[in-house]
């Protein structure tokens, strides 16, 4: 038991070291030359109104550029509701299972 605990501690410290090294490599917050400010976000900001005719950029991205993603999000909701209904719903009488 003791050796196992020490092993777990070493593993946790190794994982923490890896994560902290990754955090130290992060670009500074809010700088204009960060990797997130690439041509994709520029394209959205400049062209969303022309491409979709919708002033709300979030809706333009969610329901036009990323419409597939939203479709599968609704399917995820459907599956979640289906799983809950199958697991929890009890039919009175017990014959309709």
């Amino acid at each position, binding site marked *: 038991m003791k050796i196992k605990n020490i092993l777990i501690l070493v593993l946790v410290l190794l994982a923490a070291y890896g994560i902290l090294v990754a955090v130290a490599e992060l670009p500074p917050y809010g700088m204009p030359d960060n990797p997130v400010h690439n041509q994709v976000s520029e394209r959205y900001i400049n062209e969303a*109104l022309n*491409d*979709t*005719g*919708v*002033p*709300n950029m*979030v*809706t*333009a991205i*969610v*329901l*036009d550029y990323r*419409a*597939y993603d*939203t*479709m599968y*999000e*609704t*399917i995820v*909701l*459907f599956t*979640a*509701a289906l799983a*809950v*209904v199958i697991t*929890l*719903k*009890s039919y009175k009488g017990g014959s309709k299972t």
Partner: protein
Amino acid sequence: MKDFILKRMAAIILPLMCMYGFYVIFHGHISAGGSFAGGIIVGLSFIAYSTIYGLEKGKIKLPEKILTLTESYGTLWYVIMGMVGIVKGAPFLANKLAGLNPGTPGALSSGGLISLLGLGVGIRVASTMVTLFFTMKEEQT
């Protein structure tokens, strides 16, 4: 619950809340908000109703048949709206590419398919919330 003040206040607030949810759904493309948030508000109004007045009355307001229909056809509505692109000879879920007129930005009937897709998503989210609540509440009692 038997609280008189709560019931009267809910009778005043909840219809406006439901209407506001539909407002957020329908105006999702021209103002802040969107179909997910609007669907949550619509679902919450029904959840609050059946919390305050009891599950039986909530089920009278929103029968299981309607819930099943919206639950089943919300996603299907989305997919059918996506088929408009294929019918017009463009990729699935295409909007401007399919030649639909985006309209003037800021008008209620603008954005081509976007408001219709948003309606599907909003109904979907609302019915999912209400179904989850009804099923769990039923199991609890």
